[in-house]
C-alpha cells in the first residue's frame, strides 16, 4: 500500500538491473547479497535471524507488515538483515499483541527497506542468473552510482561473519528442572534454538565464537552444540579447531546450518557456495533412516558437497526432496550429528523438533555410559 509520505527508493543489482520503489524503514543506503525467502509468515523472525547478517532480504509473499512486530517474535536482540525488499508494505497492521508497525521497528534498528518492487521478477532473475549483490537506497537516486556500489560490494564468498554477530561475553541460561549442561558455540544462534534446549531441561552456557576451548571445557558440559550463523564457513579455521577439540572429548555434538558445515569440514568434507540458496519454510527433507518426510525451514547459501562424503566418515541421514542436496549427516567417528536446515523453525513448521529430543537422548546415553 503506498503512502504519499514515502520517499522514492531504488534497488540496484550488481548486473545493472534497477528497480524503483518507495522507501520504508530508515532513509539511507545499504547493500549486501540479495536473497529471497518464500516463507509466507515470519518476516520478523527472518529479519532478526543472525544467519541473514549482511544480506538484503526479499520476501516473496507480497503483503508484508500485516501483523506488525512483537518482542516475542525476535530471534536476536537486533535486526540482522542489511535491508528489506517487499512488494507491498502494510503500515496498518492488525494484531493486538503487537508492539509497533514494521516501518518504525526497522527505523529504530536503522534498517533500510524498499516497497513497491516486482519481487517476483527479481526472484526469477536471481533464479536464472544466480545469487548476486545489490544495494537499496532512499538517499542516492543516481542509478549508475548505485549499480557501481552494488558491483563493488564485497562478495559473500570467503567472508567470515560469525564474529560480527556472536555474543561478546559468555552467558549462562539455566533450565527449569535442569538435567544436562550443553555448551552452545554461538556463531549467530537463534533464540528459538536456545528455547528448544531450555524446554528440554538443558542448562546452557552460550560462548562467543572465538572462545578458547579450554574455557568451554572448564565448565564441564555434557554436550556441545554448534550453532547456525552467517557467512562462508571456509575461512573459519578457529571454529574447526573448536569442533576438533570438542570431538576429542567423546561427548555428543550437534550442529545446525553453519554448525553442520563446520562439523562436516572438520571431517574433511567440502562446502561450496550454491547457485541459489534455500530460504523458506516449505522445503521437503527426507529422513533416510525412517523414510518419513519433514517440511523444514531453510536458510543457507552454502552446502556440504555430498560427493565428498566418505562412507567411513559419515552417513547421509537427510536429503532435500526437491534438488537432492545434502541436509543431514550422522558422523561415524565421533558421537555427533548435524543438519543443514532449521529444526528450531521460527518461522516455519515444527516437524523437525524431534532432532532436539534425539540430541537430549544422546546426552542421556552418553552420561549413562560415563557414569557406568
Amino acid at each position: 500500500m503506498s503512502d504519499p509520505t514515502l520517499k522514492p527508493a531504488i534497488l540496484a543489482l550488481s548486473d545493472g538491473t534497477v528497480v524503483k520503489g518507495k522507501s520504508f524503514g530508515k532513509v539511507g543506503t545499504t547493500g549486501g547479497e540479495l536473497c529471497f525467502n518464500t516463507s509466507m509468515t515470519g518476516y520478523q523472525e527472518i529479519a532478526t535471524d543472525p544467519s541473514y547478517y549482511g544480506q538484503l532480504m526479499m520476501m516473496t509473499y507480497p503483503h508484508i507488515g500485516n501483523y506488525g512486530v512483537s518482542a516475542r517474535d525476535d530471534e536476536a536482540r537486533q535486526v540482522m538483515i542489511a535491508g528489506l525488499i517487499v512488494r507491498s508494505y502494510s503500515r496498518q497492521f492488525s494484531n493486538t499483541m503487537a508492539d509497533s508497525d514494521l516501518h518504525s521497528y526497522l527505523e529504530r534498528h536503522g534498517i533500510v527497506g524498499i516497497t513497491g518492487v516486482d519481487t517476483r521478477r527479481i526472484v526469477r532473475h536471481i533464479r536464472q542468473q544466480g545469487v548476486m549483490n545489490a544495494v537499496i537506497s532512499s538517499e542516492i537516486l543516481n542509478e549508475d552510482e548505485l549499480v557501481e556500489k552494488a558491483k563493488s560490494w564485497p562478495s559473500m564468498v570467503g567472508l567470515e561473519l560469525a564474529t560480527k554477530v556472536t555474543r561478546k561475553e559468555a552467558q549462562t541460561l539455566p533450565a527449569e528442572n535442569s538435567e544436562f549442561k550443553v555448551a552452545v558455540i554461538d556463531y549467530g544462534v537463534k533464540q528459538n534454538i536456545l528455547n528448544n534446549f531450555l524446554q528440554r531441561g538443558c542448562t546452557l552456557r552460550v560462548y562467543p565464537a572465538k572462545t578458547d576451548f579450554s574455557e568451554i571445557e572448564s565448565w564441564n558440559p555434557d554436550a556441545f552444540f554448534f550453532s547456525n550463523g552467517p557467512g562462508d564457513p571456509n575461512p573459519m579455521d578457529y571454529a574447526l579447531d573448536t569442533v576438533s577439540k570438542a570431538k576429542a572429548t567423546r561427548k555428543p555434538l550437534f550442529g545446525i546450518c553453519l554448525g553442520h558445515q563446520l562439523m562436516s569440514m572438520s571431517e574433511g568434507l567440502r562446502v561450496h557456495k550454491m547457485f541459489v540458496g534455500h530460504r523458506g519454510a516449505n522445503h521437503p527433507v527426507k529422513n533416510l533412516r525412517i523414510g518419513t518426510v519433514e517440511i523444514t525451514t531453510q536458510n543457507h547459501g552454502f552446502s556440504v558437497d555430498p560427493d565428498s562424503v566418505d562412507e567411513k566418515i559419515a552417513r547421509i541421514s537427510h536429503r532435500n526432496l526437491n534438488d537432492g542436496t545434502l541436509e543431514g549427516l550422522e558422523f561415524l567417528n565421533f558421537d555427533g550429528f548435524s543438519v543443514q536446515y532449521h529444526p528450531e523453525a521460527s518461522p516455519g513448521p515444527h516437524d523437525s523438533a524431534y532432532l532436539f529430543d534425539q540430541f537430549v537422548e544422546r546426552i542421556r546415553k552418553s552420561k549413562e555410559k560415563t557414569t557406568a
Partner: protein
Amino acid sequence: MPKRTDIKTILLIGSGPIVIGQACEFDYSGTQACKSLREEGYRVVLVNSNPATIMTDPMMADKVYLKPLTRETIKEICAIEKPDAVLPTMGGQTALNLARDLNHEGFWEKNNIQIIGVDIDAIDITEDRHQFRELMDSIGIEQCRSRIAKSMLDAKEIVEELGGFPVVIRPSFTMGGAGGGIIWNKDEFERKVLRGLELSPVHEILLEESIVGWKEYELELLRDSNDNVVIICSIENFDPMGVHTGDSLTVAPTQTLTDKQYQLLRDAAIKMMRSIGTFAGGCNVQFAMEPGTDRLVAIEINPRVSRSSALASKATGYPIAKIASKLAVGYNLDELNNQITGNTSACFEPSLDYVVVKVPRFNFDKFPGVDEELTTQMKAVGEVMSIGRNFPEALNKAWQSLEIGRGGLGADGYEEIDRKSVRERLLKPYWDRSLQIRNALKLGASVEEIHDITKVDPWFLEQISYMVSLENKTEGLTLDNISKEDLYEIKQAGFSDVQIAHLLSKSGTKVTEHDVRSKRLDIGLKPVFKLVDTCAGEFPAQTPYYYSSYEDENESVITDRKKLMILGSGPNRIGQGIEFDYSCVHAVLAAKEMGYETIMVNCNPETVSTDFDVADKLYFEPVYWERVWDIFEHEKPEGVLLQVGGQTALKLAKRFYDAGVTIFGTDFQKMDLAEDRGKFTELLLKLDIPFPRFGLALTVEQAINVANKVEYPVLVRPSYVLGGQGMRIAIKEEELQEYVQAVMRTHPENEILVDHYLENAIEVDVDSIYDGEQLHISGIMQHLEPAGVHSGDSTAVLPPYSLSEEVLETIRDYQHRIAKAMEIKGFINVQYAVKEGVVYVLEANPRATRTIPFIAKATGRPESAIGVKVMLGAKLSEFDLSSSLKHYAIKEPVFPFDKFPEVKKELGPEMKSTGESIYFLENFEDEHFRKPYEFKNLYLSR
C-alpha cells in the same frame, strides 16, 4: 510405498445433481481422480447421476453408470463389475454417506471391497459431534463448549448451562449444514430446535457456545500412508465466525496471523488429521481463533476432498484431488512429483506470491421472501475466485468476476448510498458485506467503527479503506491531469477502466471506459501476466496457468501457433451452471483436435475448465470485458468462441464484433437476431411459422396496450436474459402493472417483452447442430410440466412420449428452416409450444444449451464436440451421429427449497433448480416418470 497391485478395479462414487453446498467442485475432483487412477493402470468404474459432468463422459472412466446414487444401485454395479476397492472421498458428502451406509450394512466387507482414501470408521467419529468432541479432548485440541440435545427439554437445559443466548445450533449429519444457525433469543428457540431435530437423520442437535465474531481459518491437508502430512493451503475468512465458510468471502493465504499463530494452527491440524484413523488422502480442518489471544478452537474436520480443496487447488496450483487419488492407492507423497514444476517433489507446502480472494455468488433474487441473512447454513449457489498481487487487486477482480454488472468493489456508478441503509446492512452478515464496508468508509465511517459492528479484521478494513482513498483521490482528477503514477497505482489496486471512468467523470466531464483504456495504453499501462507456480518463483514451472497484474515483468510468452480463445461461464448460478462448463471443456478439447492452441478464460474455481491441464493456456481471470480484452490483445488469437459459456460469454459478443474480432460459428448479427424479438418475428413471419402473439414495451402503459392486443394471460420478461430471470405470467392488468414495474427496476435498460401465454400447451425443447447444409437433431425433449414452467425446471423426456409423428415432423421442419434462415454454423436450440396440434415457436438460442450434456449422455454422442467442430469448419458428414439410446432418458431437476424453508415451492417462467440428474426409462410405469407426471401441474405458478 509404490502403488498397490492387489487392486485392479476401483469404484468411484460421484456426488449427484448440483445442490447448494455441493456443486461442480466434485466434477473437478472426480475428473481428476479418474485421470489420476487410470494413469496408473487401474480400471475405473464410475457412478453418478449428474449428466452435466465431465467425469461421466465415456472417455473418463472404463465404465460409467449414469444411475441414481442409492445403495441398490451400488449393489447392482458391484455385482456386475466386482470392484476390488471403492474410493468415496471424491463425491462430497453424498458419496461418503452412501459408503458409510453400506459399511454399516457390512456390504463392503462381505463383498471383499476395500474402502480406500478414508478410514470409514473414523468418519463416524468426525460426523458424530459427541464422539468428535471426546476425540479432540483426548488429543488436547480445544473446542467450544457444547452439548448434544435429543429433545426440546435437553435443549432448554443446555442453553441455561451455556449462559443463555445466543447459542449455535448444528443438527447432526446434515449436508451443507442444513438446519444449522444461530439462535439469538427465546422467540426463535423452539422453531429452530424442532426443525434441527427433524432434519437430522438421527434426530439430534448440538448446542454450542457462540463464538460469533472470532477469526475463522481453514487448512487443506494431504496425508500419505507413511503418515507424512503437508498443508497445501491456508485460508482466512474475511467474514468472522457465524457465516458458513461456503458463504464467506475468503482469502488465501492467511493474512493476519503471525508465524507463531499460524504454526499453532498447523500443529493442531496435523494432530487432528492423524487422530482420525489411518488413511491416505485429503482433509480439511476448520478453526476459530479468539481475536487478541492465541485461543484456538477446532470447528470441524472433513476427511475428504471438499469445496475448499477445489478452491485450494486453484489457489495454489496444487492438484489436490489428483494427488489424493494417488495416495489412496498406496503411493507416498515423496514418490510423486509436483506436476506444476515437473521436477520437484509433490511432498511440500506451496508458497504463494499473490493473494487469492473467493467471493460466493447468491441467487436470492430468484426466491422472493427468502431470508438473506448469512448463517451457518450455506445459501450460496456458486463462487468466483480471483488472483492479484495484492488484496485490493484480488478483491476488485472478484467483484468483476461475479457478473452482477459491477465494475469492481463499488465506485462504478451503480448505486446511491445512504448512511442509514448502509448501517442497517452492516449490522448483520449479508452477501454484499465487503461492498457495504466500502460504502461505509466512503461515507466517512472509521475502521474502528466498522470493526466494532462487523468484527471483520482491521487489516482487511484498512485495505478497503486504502481502496476508498484511491477513489477519493481520483475523483478530484480529470482524464487529462491524472498522472501516470496515479493511474498505475489505481490499476495496481485492481480498479477497472469502468470504475476509473466513473471516478474521473465526477470532475464534470463525462469520461468513458474507452477513454480510460486509450489513455492508459497511450502511456504504456497494460497488464502483465504472472504464473501460478506453487513455489513463488523458486523453481521454473511447466504449466501455463496465469493471472494478470500491473507490474514490470510479463511471463506469458506468446507462441506462433494458431490460437483460439474460449470464454468460460463464470460463477455457477441458477440458470447457468455446470452444463456450460461441460461444453467449455469439450470446446477446448475439440479445438485442440482441430489444431488450435486453446486459451481458456474463467474465474470459477469449482470447474474442470480451470484445471491447469485442460486448455493449452489458462487465464484465471474475470470473464469481464476489460480483462478478457487485455488477454485477447496480448495473445492475439484468430478468434473467440462464445457460444459454449452460456450468457456470460454471449453478452460480450457485441463488443468483440464491434472490435472486428472473428467470432467462430454463427455470425454475430444472426445470433443477435435471435435476441431481437422484432427481427426474429419478421423471420418467423417470412418462414410462415406460428408464434404466440407478442409485443414490446418500454413503459407500463405500452405493456398494458400490448397485453390487451395479444390477450391475457401474458408472459412478461426483460429481453436479453438467461434462465428466465425476472419472467412472470400475468393474468390481469394489475398483475401486469406490478411485474412490469419490477422488471423496470431490475433491468432498467432492457426492453420488456409481453407474449401471449399459451395455457396448457406442451413444451418441446429441441437441440440441434447445423453445418450450412445438413441439420443434425441432437434431441427432441418433451416436458412433462405445461409450457410456462421454465425449461430448466421441467422434467424432460427424450425422445417425446406423446407427440404425434406429424407434430414431430413439423418440429423438425421448422428447426431446419430456422437454422437455414439464420445461417447457423454450430448449435441451434429452439423451444416450441404445441397446443391443439399447432406448433408455435417460443424462442431460438444459437448456442450450446443447458441440455446439450444431457443429450450427449443419453445418446452417447459427443454433442458438444461435434457442435464446436462444426463451428470451426467441420461438416456433420464427418461424424458418426448414431445414438445408443434404447428407450427413454428423463431429466429430473433438483430444487433448493429445503435450504429456504421460508420460501414456498412454486415453479414458473423463472428458473429455480440448481441441477439435474439423468435416469434411463424403459417404460412409463417407472416411478421416475409416474411421480413427476402425477405432479406436473402442481407447482405451476405465476
